[in-house]
C-alpha cells in the first residue's frame, strides 16, 4: 500500500460529498431522545440540579475539579435561574428537532447537555454519555440542510430551490465512529470479565432487582440459554463495533442490533438508553434507501413540506 492511496481512502471516507439525509434524520431522532430525557427528568430538575440538590455544585466541583463546560457554574445559584436554564435547554432541543436555527440549537443543546452531566456525574448512564459525545460532533454536521424548518424558510424566501446538495460527511463519520467504538470497547471490557467468558453474566444482569422491568419467560432463565445469551452479547458487540463497516453485513447487523436493544428495553429498566443508541443507527443506512422511504412518505405530505426533503435521486 502506498501513502498516497491511504490519503485517498481517508479523503474518500471523510470528505467525498454524500447526501446529508442520514445526519438530518439523525438530528430529528437525536432531538427526540434529548427531549425524552429532559421530560423524564422534569419532575426532578431541582432535586438533582437545584440549590439543595442531592449533590451540591460545590461538592461536584471538589470531586471533579478543573475547567469544565458547565453553565451551572456561570449562572446565579438560585432555583429560578436553574429552571430557566432547563427551559432554554428544552426549547433548544425542540428547535433542533424541527431544524430551526439548527446550528445554534445544536450548540445550545450540547452546552446544556454537557452542563447537566458536569453538574451531577453520578446519575448519568451510558445513553446520556452517548448523547453528549454524539452532540459534540453533531454541532459540526450539516444537520439543517434537509428535513428542517431552516430549509423550508429558505425555500419560502426564495433563497433555495434546488435539491439538497451533497455535503462532506466527516461529522457524520465521527458519530458513526463513536457508535462503533462504543460497541467494540464494550466487547473488550466484557471479554475481560470471567462471568462473560464463562457465560454466567446474563444471569446476574437479569436478576438485579433494581433494574428488572417486564417478566422474562422461564425458558430464557435456563443455564444453557443464559450462557448462549452472554456469548451472543459478546459476539454482537464485537460485530457492531468491527463488522458494521462492511457494507454487505451492515443491514443484517443493524437488524440484530435493533432486536438486541428492543430485548434490553423490554427486560431492563434503563430509561432512554436503548433509544439514545438506536437513534444513531440511521447514520449507517444508505441515503438512497432513506430517500426511497421519504419519497414514499412525500406522496402523503402537503406540497410545501414535500420540498424539505428533496434530494438528488
Amino acid at each position: 500500500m502506498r501513502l498516497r492511496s491511504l490519503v485517498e481512502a481517508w479523503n474518500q471516507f471523510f470528505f467525498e460529498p454524500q447526501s446529508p439525509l442520514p445526519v438530518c434524520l439523525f438530528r430529528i431522532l437525536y432531538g427526540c431522545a434529548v427531549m425524552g430525557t429532559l421530560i423524564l427528568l422534569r419532575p426532578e430538575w431541582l432535586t438533582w440540579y437545584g440549590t439543595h440538590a442531592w449533590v451540591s455544585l460545590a461538592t461536584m466541583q471538589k470531586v471533579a475539579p478543573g475547567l469544565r463546560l458547565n453553565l451551572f457554574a456561570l449562572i446565579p445559584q438560585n432555583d429560578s435561574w436553574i429552571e430557566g436554564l432547563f427551559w432554554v435547554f428544552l426549547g433548544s432541543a425542540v428547535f433542533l428537532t424541527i431544524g430551526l436555527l439548527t446550528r445554534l440549537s445544536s450548540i445550545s443543546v450540547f452546552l446544556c447537555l454537557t452542563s447537566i452531566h458536569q453538574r451531577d456525574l453520578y446519575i448519568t448512564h451510558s445513553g446520556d454519555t452517548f448523547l453528549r459525545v454524539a452532540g459534540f460532533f453533531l454541532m459540526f454536521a450539516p444537520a439543517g440542510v434537509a428535513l428542517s424548518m431552516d430549509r423550508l424558510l429558505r425555500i419560502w424566501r426564495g433563497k433555495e430551490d434546488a435539491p439538497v446538495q451533497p455535503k462532506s460527511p466527516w461529522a457524520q463519520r465521527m458519530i458513526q465512529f463513536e457508535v462503533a467504538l462504543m460497541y467494540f470497547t464494550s466487547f473488550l471490557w466484557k471479554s475481560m470479565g470471567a462471568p462473560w467468558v464463562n457465560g454466567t453474566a446474563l444471569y446476574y444482569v437479569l436478576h438485579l432487582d433494581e433494574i428488572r422491568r417486564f417478566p422474562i419467560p422461564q425458558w430464557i432463565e435456563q443455564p444453557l440459554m443464559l450462557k448462549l445469551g452472554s456469548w451472543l452479547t459478546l459476539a454482537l458487540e464485537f460485530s457492531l463495533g468491527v463488522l458494521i463497516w462492511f457494507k454487505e453485513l451492515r443491514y443484517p447487523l443493524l437488524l440484530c442490533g435493533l432486536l438486541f436493544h428492543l430485548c434490553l428495553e423490554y427486560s431492563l429498566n434503563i430509561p432512554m438508553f436503548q433509544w439514545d443508541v438506536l437513534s444513531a443507527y440511521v447514520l449507517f443506512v444508505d441515503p438512497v434507501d432513506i430517500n426511497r422511504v421519504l419519497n414514499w412518505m412525500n406522496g402523503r405530505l402537503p406540497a410545501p413540506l414535500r420540498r424539505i426533503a428533496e434530494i438528488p435521486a
Partner: protein
Amino acid sequence: MAPNTQTRIKRIAISAFLLFHIVAITCWCLPFSSPLIAMFDNVIRPYFFWSGLFQSWDTFAPNPKLVNSYIEAIVIYKNGHTRNWVFPRMEKLSLTDRYWEERYRKFVENLREDANVALWPDAGRRIARLNNNNDISNPPEIVVLIRHWSEMVPYRSAPWHAQIFYEYNVKPEDLR
C-alpha cells in the same frame, strides 16, 4: 487566496482535528494499560474533561454487579424519636414510576461506594431537609445512612446484610 488552496487548507485543518479526536478517543476508551497510552491520556485529560468528551463503555463489565442493594436512612430527632427513610427502590415502584425515578437507582449505586465518601454529607443534609417537620423545637439532629446488600448466588436466595456507613450531624443552617 485561490478557492482551491482555501479548500485544501480547510481540509487539512479538519483532517488534523479528526485524526486527533480519533486517536484521543480510542486511547481514552480502550481498556488497555500501556505507559504510552497513560501518558497520552494525561495530556488529553484536561481537554476531555472540559469539552465533555470523556466517556467509558463498561456497562455490566468487566463483571456485572453481583449484589442487590439499597440504602436506608434513620433520622434521629432532638427528642430522640426516629424515622426510617428509604431511597426509592425500583423493584418496589410501579412500572411507570420506576421509569421516572430511575436516576435514584444510579445515584444510590454510586452513593453506597466508599470511594464516593465526598457525596455523603450532601446526602445527609438533603435527607434531613426532606424529613424536617418544621417543628423548631424538634428538628432532625442526626442522619444515619445504612447500606443493605445481598450477594447473588445463581438459582438460590441469599441473606441480606446491613451496615451503617455514615452518620451526619445536622446543622441548623442545613434546614433553612
